[in-house]
């Protein structure tokens, strides 16, 4: 809802049936400014045309960093064990030369959350090193998550 203050259209890459609670939350925000537009990753080409068009127009595309939707993941050391994280947002940003703002939230009280948006990157592929670059970016992302965890004593 607060993204409305940025005066940009907001799209969210998300399967429509995945989370009714989130869907309801987004619907509730629709009376304020412009409603959040859903881009279904299950449609043809995974919504690539809509995603690129939205970014070209300078708008915001949100992608969840913890759901792979069946797409590839990268193995990243996380809290002492290998974990498998999606890297779609980083790959889309690198392909379209868009910045990534990492939004990390955690619940501190029943109705209180802390949101951290202090990490912003412009992923750029190094020539011929696509896999390595993507993995480096993913590690950077999940390192940020560990730092947040440390700050908030989770």
């Amino acid at each position: 809802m607060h993204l409305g203050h940025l005066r940009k259209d907001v799209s969210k890459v998300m399967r429509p049936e995945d989370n009714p609670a989130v869907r309801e939350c987004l619907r509730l925000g629709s009376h304020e400014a412009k409603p959040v537009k859903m881009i279904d990753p299950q449609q043809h080409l995974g919504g690539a045309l809509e995603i690129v068009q939205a970014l070209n127009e300078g708008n915001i595309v949100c992608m969840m960093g913890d759901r792979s939707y069946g797409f590839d993941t990268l193995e990243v050391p996380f809290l002492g064990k290998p974990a498998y994280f999606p890297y779609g947002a980083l790959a889309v940003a690198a392909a379209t030369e868009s910045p990534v703002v990492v939004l990390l939230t955690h619940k501190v009280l029943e109705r209180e959350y802390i949101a951290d948006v202090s990490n912003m990157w412009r992923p750029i592929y190094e020539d011929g090193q696509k896999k390595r670059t993507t993995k480096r970016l993913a590690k950077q992302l999940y390192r940020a998550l560990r730092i947040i965890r440390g700050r908030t004593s989770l």
Partner: protein
Amino acid sequence: MTASKEEELVAIRRELKELLVSMLAGLEEIDPADIKDDEMLFEEGLGLDSLDAVEIVALLQRHFGLHVKDMKEGREIFKSIDTLSRYIYDNRSKENK
């Protein structure tokens, strides 16, 4: 079809194959010449996925100055190297005017 159009299409197909192999992580081991003109790009063909699709849409913009916006049109355009090449041939000159 005139010979010059066919020659231009051949050149576009070759350029596209080289660009895709250099750009897409999943095609690193493939020789561009081994990609068939009519091979499906997604699913059972070359097996590209939606992240590759984003890269191809961005490539069309950066390299050829083309913006595909119509979702229905996209379904046809992104079928194979051949359909992509024909789209580039038919639209490159229009957008550059």
